[in-house]
C-alpha cells in the first residue's frame, strides 16, 4: 500500500467524525496558536527594541560616576582631554547632564529641560535632534570662556516668543531649582524633536528644551563641580567593549581609584544583551508552556486513537483477512494521528498568526513570524502525532484477525 492511499484513507477517516476530530485537535490548536502568537509578538518586540537602540546609536558609551564618589572623583576637563588623547577610537565626547530649570523670555515663562555639556553634545544627545535651524551650536571657545549662551529648540522658541522661531540674539533668563539665575543669549535654534523609545511623546506635555555649555552652568551654580556623566561616541561598534574598559581604567588611574568601582561604563550592547537575555528566558518559558500544551494535546490524540481502534476492531480484522499486513495497519493508524496533529498544527498556525497580528497592531509593533517557527510547528505537530499515535497504531496492528472479526 502506497503513501497516497494511506493519506487518502487517513483524511477520509478524520473527516468522517468532523466534530470529534476537531475537539481532539483543539489541544494541539491552542498550544500551537499560543506559541506562534507569542513568538511572533516577542520577536517583533525584540526587533523593535533592537532597532530603537541602533537608531539611538549603538556606538555610544555612557561613563558615569557613582553617587558614593566624592567631588574629587568627578570627571574633569583634563580627564576628558586625556581620554581623547589616549583612545584614538573616541570620535566625540561630552558631558551629558540634564536638570530642570525655568526659562523666562520677555513674553512667557516655561519649565525647561536643561542639558549641559561640551560642544560635542550637539552630536551625542540621544533625546534631541540637534540639527541647527538658525544660528549655531555653542563651540569650544564658548565652552572655555563660560559664555552666557544657550541653544534652544524650535518648539521652545515658539513657546517663549509668541510663535516666532528665528530668535537668535534674543535674551533668556534661566533659573534653576536652587534659585541660581543667569541671563543668556540665544545663539542657535535646533530642530529639537524629542525622540523617545516609542517615538510618540506628546510634545505639548513636555517642558521646553535648552542646552548650555557645562562651564556656563558651573558659573551659574557653583555646586555643580565637574562631570558625573560622560557620553562617548566611538568610530565603530566593534570598539565599544575595549573603549569602555580603557576609559574606566584611565579614569581610575587618574583619580587614584583603581578597584574602587566608582566609574562604570554602560553601552547599548550591554542593554541589547539584557534584552536578549530577557527574551531568551521568555522564549524558554513559552517553549515549556508549549511543551505542556502539546503533551496534553498529544494525550488527547492518543485517547481518541485508542477509541478509534476499538471502534474499528472489526474493520481491522476485515482488512487483515483481505491481506493487510501488520505494517500496513500500523501505517494507516499512524498516518491518521499524524494527520490529526498536522491539521491541528496548521489551524493553530493560522490562528496564531492572526492573534499575533491583532495584538501587535494594538501594541504598534510588527509581528515577526519566521519560516523557522512555521517549520518548527509542522515538525513538532508531526512528531507529536507519531509519538502519541504509535501506541494505538501498534495495538491495532497486533490485533488477532479472528478476535477482531468476531468483535461486536
Amino acid at each position, binding site marked *: 500500500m502506497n503513501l497516497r492511499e494511506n493519506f487518502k484513507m487517513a483524511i477520509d477517516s478524520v473527516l468522517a467524525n468532523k466534530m470529534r476530530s476537531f475537539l481532539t485537535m483543539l489541544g494541539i490548536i491552542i498550544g500551537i496558536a499560543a506559541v506562534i502568537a507569542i513568538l511572533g509578538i516577542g520577536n517583533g518586540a525584540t526587533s523593535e527594541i533592537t532597532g530603537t537602540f541602533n537608531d539611538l546609536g549603538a556606538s555610544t558609551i555612557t561613563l558615569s560616576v557613582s553617587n558614593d564618589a566624592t567631588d574629587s572623583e568627578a570627571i574633569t576637563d583634563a580627564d576628558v582631554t586625556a581620554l581623547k588623547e589616549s583612545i584614538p577610537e573616541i570620535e566625540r565626547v561630552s558631558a551629558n547632564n540634564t536638570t530642570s530649570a525655568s526659562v523666562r523670555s520677555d513674553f512667557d515663562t516655561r519649565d525647561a529641560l536643561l542639558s549641559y555639556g561640551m560642544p560635542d553634545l550637539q552630536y551625542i544627545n540621544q533625546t534631541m535632534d540637534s540639527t541647527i535651524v538658525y544660528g549655531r551650536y555653542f563651540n569650544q571657545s564658548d565652552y572655555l570662556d563660560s559664555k552666557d549662551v544657550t541653544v534652544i529648540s524650535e518648539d521652545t522658541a515658539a513657546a517663549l516668543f509668541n510663535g516666532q522661531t528665528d530668535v537668535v540674539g534674543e535674551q533668556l533668563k534661566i533659573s534653576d531649582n536652587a534659585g541660581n539665575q543667569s541671563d543668556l543669549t540665544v545663539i542657535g535654534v535646533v530642530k529639537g524633536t524629542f525622540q523617545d523609545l516609542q517615538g510618540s511623546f506628546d510634545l505639548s506635555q513636555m517642558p521646553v528644551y535648552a542646552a548650555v555649555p557645562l562651564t556656563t552652568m558651573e558659573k551659574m551654580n557653583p555646586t555643580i563641580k565637574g562631570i558625573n556623566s560622560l557620553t562617548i561616541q566611538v568610530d565603530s561598534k566593534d570598539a565599544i567593549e575595549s573603549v569602555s574598559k580603557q576609559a574606566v581604567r584611565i579614569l581610575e588611574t587618574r583619580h587614584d581609584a583603581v578597584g574602587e568601582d566608582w566609574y562604570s561604563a554602560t553601552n547599548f550592547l550591554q542593554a541589547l544583551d539584557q534584552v536578549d537575555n530577557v527574551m531568551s528566558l521568555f522564549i524558554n518559558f513559552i517553549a515549556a508552556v508549549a511543551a505542556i500544551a502539546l503533551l496534553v494535546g498529544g494525550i488527547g490524540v492518543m485517547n481518541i486513537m485508542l477509541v478509534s481502534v476499538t471502534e474499528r476492531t472489526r*474493520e481491522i480484522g476485515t482488512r487483515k483477512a483481505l491481506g493487510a499486513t501488520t505494517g500496513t495497519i500500523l501505517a494507516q493508524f499512524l498516518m491518521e494521528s499524524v494527520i490529526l496533529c498536522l491539521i491541528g498544527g496548521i489551524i493553530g498556525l493560522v490562528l496564531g498568526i492572526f492573534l499575533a497580528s491583532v495584538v501587535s497592531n494594538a501594541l504598534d509593533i510588527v509581528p515577526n513570524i519566521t519560516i523557522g517557527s512555521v517549520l518548527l510547528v509542522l515538525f513538532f505537530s508531526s512528531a507529536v502525532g507519531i509519538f502519541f499515535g504509535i501506541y494505538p497504531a501498534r495495538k491495532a496492528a497486533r490485533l488477532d484477525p479472528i478476535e477482531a472479526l468476531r468483535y461486536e
Partner: protein
Amino acid sequence: MIEIKDITKIYRTGGEPLVALDKISLSIQEGEFTAIMGPSGSGKSTMMNILGLLDRFDSGTYYLNGKDVSHLSDNEGAHVRNKEIGFVFQSFNLMPRMTILENVELPMVYANVPKKERNERAVKALERVGLGNRVKHRPNEISGGQKQRVAIARAIVNTPSVLMADEPTGNLDSKTTLDIMRIFQELNAEGTTVVMVTHEPEVAEYTKRVVLFKDGVIRDDYPQQQKIL
C-alpha cells in the same frame, strides 16, 4: 489444492483445554464446491479459520496449492490471503465510509495494483455480480443482498484460487439467499473452488459436497447431486 493432514487445534483459555479439532485430514480438489456443516461448537468455524490462514493450529500440516503453509509468519499469511483466498463473511464486513468501488478495490490496494488497473478490475468484478451501476454508492445505501454481492466481488477481484464463505447467507432472506447461491454456483461453474460454512441443510443442497463436523472430528463426508439454480 487444499491438503490438510492430522490438524489439531486446542483452545487453552480458562480451565480445561478444549479440543476444537482432533486430527482432521481433508482434501479439497480444484473446482469443488464444498459445504462444511455441523452444529455450533462442532469445529466447523475453527476449520474455516485455519483453511483461511486466519488462525494457527497446534499440530498437523496444511498444503495450499502444493505449498506448505503450516507455519507462516503473520505477514506471509497476509500475502497468501491476499493472493490466494477470497473471503465472504456472514455480516458482509464492508468498509462503511468507502464507496462500493473502493471496497472492491481494497484487496488490490494491499497488493499494490496501480490505480487504473484497480479501477478496471473492480468494475469488472462488480459487473460480474450484477452491480455495475452502483459503484459510487456507499454500503448503507444498498440492500443486504447487494452488500453480499459487493463482498463477493471483493473476494474474487484478486482472482484467488479458493473462495471461503462463512455463513454467507446467514443474514439474508430466502429469496436473496438463492440469488447469492446462484452467484456462487456460477463462479464455481467457471472454475472457482468454493468452500462454504453453513448450518442450513437447504443451503448446502446447492453445493457438490458436504463435510459434516461434530465434536471436532469429521463425522461424514459425501458428494451429492447439486441442486442447480
